[in-house]
């Protein structure tokens, strides 16, 4: 029997097509990044960051994205674990609902949140929040976190569910036979094994939150020095024709997103599951 032929013409055409499509997409992504980078200069970025309203948006973006990421992991871990381990009536429906924020148009999420907080229940929640923290929700900073969270948490849940699905449930069972309660097995056996997935979910949620624009614009507005986040800055600068500032801020967002991915790769994580 002859050894395997090193690539027939059909194979060459097949793999050639795959490579050509891959290269075309890679070129598009790299082209966008290079175009952004070549359009502006370090001086323009410094000058943009010197403006108090952009510095405010910068700090607000990073702060809200961090709070959102922590909230997303806090909610995502129990929900992801439950979906991975438990079977219950209506699970398929719950699963579909959890994915809704991923597929809904971003503006619709913002609008839905706005309407939700205009209902009787929403107004009660807002009044309670105001009496507790002295600040409202709609068109205030908390609305930014809620708008980011509505989308980011869905991605965190998806990542964490995959993580828990990949862990052998027999580990928890064995732990239970050795004296653990279900809660102890989760904290001492499952969670330490899932740390990479938890970190991936956090990074993914943070990157998503940082770039969230549609829901934030509708639910929080884009008031300068108040609810303006970096994606809103890009929009506002473009709308007044300051392309240089818009590109400079875009580059900051690109750097943060790429940095997030690189950190994930460095830690051996799969950030985009």
């Amino acid at each position: 029997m002859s050894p395997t032929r090193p690539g027939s013409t059909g194979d060459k055409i097949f793999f050639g097509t795959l490579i050509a499509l891959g290269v075309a997409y890679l070129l598009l992504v790299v082209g966008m990044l290079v175009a952004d980078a070549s359009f502006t200069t370090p001086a323009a970025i410094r000058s943009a960051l010197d403006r108090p309203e952009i510095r405010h948006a910068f700090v607000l973006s990073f702060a809200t994205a961090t709070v959102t990421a922590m909230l997303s992991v806090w909610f995502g871990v129990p929900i992801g674990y439950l979906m991975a381990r438990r079977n219950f009536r209506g699970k398929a429906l719950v699963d579909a609902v959890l994915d809704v924020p991923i597929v809904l148009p971003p503006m619709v999420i913002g609008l839905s949140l706005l309407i939700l907080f205009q209902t009787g229940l929403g107004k009660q929640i807002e009044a309670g929040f105001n009496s507790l923290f002295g600040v409202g929700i709609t068109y205030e900073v908390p609305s930014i976190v809620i708008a980011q969270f509505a989308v980011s948490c869905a991605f965190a849940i998806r990542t964490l569910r995959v993580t828990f699905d990949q862990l052998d449930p027999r580990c928890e069972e064995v732990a239970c036979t050795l004296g653990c309660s279900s809660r102890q097995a989760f904290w001492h056996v499952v969670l330490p094994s899932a740390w990479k997935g938890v970190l991936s979910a956090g990074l993914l949620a943070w990157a998503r939150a940082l770039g969230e624009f549609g829901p934030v614009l509708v639910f929080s507005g884009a008031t300068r020095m108040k609810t303006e986040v970096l994606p809103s800055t890009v929009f506002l600068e473009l709308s007044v024709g300051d392309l240089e500032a818009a590109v400079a801020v875009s580059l900051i967002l690109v750097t943060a997103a790429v940095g997030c991915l690189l950190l994930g790769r460095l830690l051996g994580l799969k950030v985009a599951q």
Partner: protein
Amino acid sequence: MSLQLKQCATTAGTFHLGPADMDLPAGAYGVLMGTTGSGKTTLLELIAGLAPLTAGALNIAGHPCNNARPADRQIGYLPQDGVLFDTMTVAEHLEFAPRFRGWPKTKRIERVAELAERLGLTSLLMRRPAGLSGGERQRVALGRALAGRPKLLLLDEPLSALDEQMHSELCQYLAKVHKDEGVTVLHVTHNAREAELLGTHQFRLEGGRVLTKS
């Protein structure tokens, strides 16, 4: 500690086990054989409290355990393939059951040292499962199951997938452990030689029922 199953049954998906009867006296070494898919693992899971008991009565040491939590059954369970915890060292595996059963620290340290010595794991105490061979992993899983001084030890094919030398060594370990710890053992195997060598009582699972051989 004795083990008694009276007309016990369970269902896992489309698989149905039982009604099964078994009587294993305290201190005995029971060996359970049966064809692949006959439900041997399901039976061990039923005894361990990991599979629901849908009918019958399960008594461990004379106490009814139908609804007891796995943690309260005083068992040591060694599942197929060991199922070690990726993030823990060998020492942490050996300390696991004593820790969650509330032993004081000094007693836990003594127990880890004693088991490590007996199972030849002393030089591996700081290693994680990824750095262990198949035989070493099985010994760690056995040590972990024994560490909390269980009254009943459930072993699911603990010697499968081992080379002949390791198989023979672990067989001797098991016989010694049974003698030294005075623990009642129920051991699932496909290997007739293993059953002859270790078992004081032999059972066979056929058609969802347990047949006593001796």
